[in-house]
């Protein structure tokens, strides 16, 4: 890492830490949501961008994590870290079981099979009323606590810092994975699956591992979402959530992780502003933005930013 690169990273981190001092309560809330969705989208980028596995059912694992955290909070403990751990574990388990079947298919077939799994998990949440509360969702979830302190996380600034910490752990873990030998093997699978197989890599096992890992981190993000809203319902894991995650990755730029987070920020801020300005017709403009991004900004925000940077440096 260059010195300038390190300095930029530290500056961004400092800005993120100081954000609540500069933003009002609502904007801090919105930024918290962006970090949560950004982490979720980044976990999908690991599959979609790095490994070339386009999942359209990733919200299923986000939802499994959200319900696991919420139910654990309702019935066992309000401890925030315990909920994160449980969500991570349960989401990883569900991703592993569904992944066994999913990784056998490729391309659009993988896309539709993951869609089916995501929708089946959603239907399950909608119909397993005794556990999930059905369409009403689970509510009355106590505020999460950090060990001894029972109310530290209640103010939105504090919850933001907690989210930022968890986000960084997840994000750095993802960065670490993509830079590792395993990450390079994933890139090899994306490029040429047969060749990786003939080189002695177990392609199905690697795919299953990355599918499980991505599902686990999605569950982690789902737990954060549940802790923030103290509520979770099937709407939190619907097809829309999966589709938006794909959209923000493409807008932000694939295979960068950062692109997923920037895409999430772009989507949330855009939607927020459009919804203010246009009330019920914000979808129209958002759709136009999608179209323009594809035609004018191939490679998404990150590559657009890099092009701009190069031009400025020259």
């Amino acid at each position, binding site marked *: 890492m260059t010195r300038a690169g390190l300095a930029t990273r530290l500056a961004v981190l400092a800005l993120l830490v100081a954000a609540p001092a500069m933003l009002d309560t609502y904007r801090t809330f919105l930024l918290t*949501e962006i970090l949560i969705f950004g982490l979720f989208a980044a976990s999908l980028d690991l599959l979609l961008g790095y490994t070339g596995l386009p999942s359209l059912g990733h919200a299923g694992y986000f939802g499994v994590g959200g319900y696991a955290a919420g139910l654990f909070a309702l019935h066992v403990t309000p401890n925030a870290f315990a909920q994160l751990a449980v969500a991570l574990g349960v989401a990883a388990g569900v991703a592993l079981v569904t992944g066994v079947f999913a990784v056998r298919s490729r391309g659009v077939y993988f896309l539709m099979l993951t869609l089916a799994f995501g929708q089946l998990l959603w239907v399950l949440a909608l*119909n397993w009323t005794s556990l999930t509360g059905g369409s009403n969702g689970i*509510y009355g*979830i106590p505020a999460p606590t950090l060990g001894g302190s029972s109310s530290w996380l209640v103010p939105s600034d504090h919850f933001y810092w907690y989210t930022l910490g968890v986000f960084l752990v997840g994000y750095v873990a993802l960065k670490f994975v993509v830079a590792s030998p395993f990450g390079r093997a994933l890139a090899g699978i994306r490029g040429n699956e047969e060749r990786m197989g003939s080189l002695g890599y177990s392609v199905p096992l690697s795919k299953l591992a990355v599918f499980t890992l991505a599902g686990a981190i999605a569950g982690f993000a789902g737990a954060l979402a549940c802790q923030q809203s103290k*509520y979770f*319902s099937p709407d939190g894991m619907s097809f829309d959530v999966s589709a938006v995650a794909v959209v923000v990755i493409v807008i932000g730029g694939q295979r960068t992780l950062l692109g997923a987070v920037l895409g999430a920020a772009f989507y949330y801020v855009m939607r927020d502003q459009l*919804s203010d300005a246009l009330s019920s017709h914000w979808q129209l403009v958002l759709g136009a933005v999608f179209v323009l991004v594809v035609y004018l900004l191939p490679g998404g925000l990150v590559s657009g930013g890099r092009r701009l940077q190069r031009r400025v440096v020259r």
Partner: protein
Amino acid sequence: MDRRELLKRAGAGAAIASVPLAGSSRAWAGITRKTATTPLRIGNLLTLSGPNSAPPIDVRRGFVAYVLAHGHRIGGRRVQFIDADDGNNPATAIRQVQKLVNEDHVDVIEGIFFSSVLLGVRDTIDQLKVPTIIANAAANALSRDRKSAYMFRTSYSNYQLGVPLGPWAARVIGKSGVVAITANYAAGQESAAAFKDAYEKAGGTLGATILTPFPVTPDYQPYFQQAADKGAKGVWAFTAGGGEAIKFVKTYKQFGFDKQFQLFGSNNMTDPQSVLDAQGDAALGIRTTANWAPTLKNKENVLFLKQYDKFGTGEPSAFAELGYIAAQFLDLAVRKVHGDTSNKARFLAAMASVGTWQSPGGKLTMDTKTHNVVEPVYLRNVVKRGSNYTQPLVSTLGIFKEPGA
């Protein structure tokens, strides 16, 4: 443009006729005259976008109709509306409540159409302590274990939707031969449970409760067949609204089930008018309950219909009336504190003690214990007059109260 500036501009606009109804700008004013008082800031938390936004937008229209019909004021104060689209998603709704309270500094929130949204925002509203009037979402829990000191419901609970036809079915259809069909989601389940309870208290024995997949049922025929196989003479039904209601009623007629059993149930089976028009002849003879009808003869209803007519969007739906009574309730509460909503405890106490008032749908009473309205429920029958389908009142089924436990 800065949001505040936008508010000012909207406030300076002259023509009331230009009040946006389908929604062009989020913040706008319902008043043109300049007065010394600060305007009452009302957040409209409703599903304003997406395929299910027609009924929630009706609620908003009804609310505006009341304000326009009453000197453009609520409790003597000018009014500023701030729209917040929840997209029929609890997470979005929670964000919007944060925004309405922390950025827009609203005095009161009105709206909330869907139950999942209601249960999702309940804790946030309670924590932020913002007075809220619920204009449709009917989850029982809000009047029971999830009751909030800050929330009042002027529409109904699912219990109130399900109970009224219980004794009627026992009397008209019989003590047996009744089957319930409901869309398998919370509103339907809670209403069906209430219907079963009421029917059995009236001496009946329910044949079965059949659940249809929610949100979409591709084919209703097997479910009607199941009811027929159980020997149904009458079927109480609760359908998801809109397209599902149209499919449901058409299937009933097209497959000849209308020759086997009478269909009756709660109002979203045949409301709003566009749904009934699409059902056409298939809906003839279906009995549904309602909290209001355009044909009711009282002063408020005349005022409501007259004002609504000026929008040029046709006859109001029952959802529009729900918006109207939410505004009516707010007006009464703000009047009780002489327009001063700054003392929240006093304002909330005023809301709880509004008592009884005359709405377009008859006499309503705010129950201080449950924060849920006590209301008359009417029975309607679908008939064809000329080339139009209407639902005249058959009778009053009684006054119904949410038990609160």
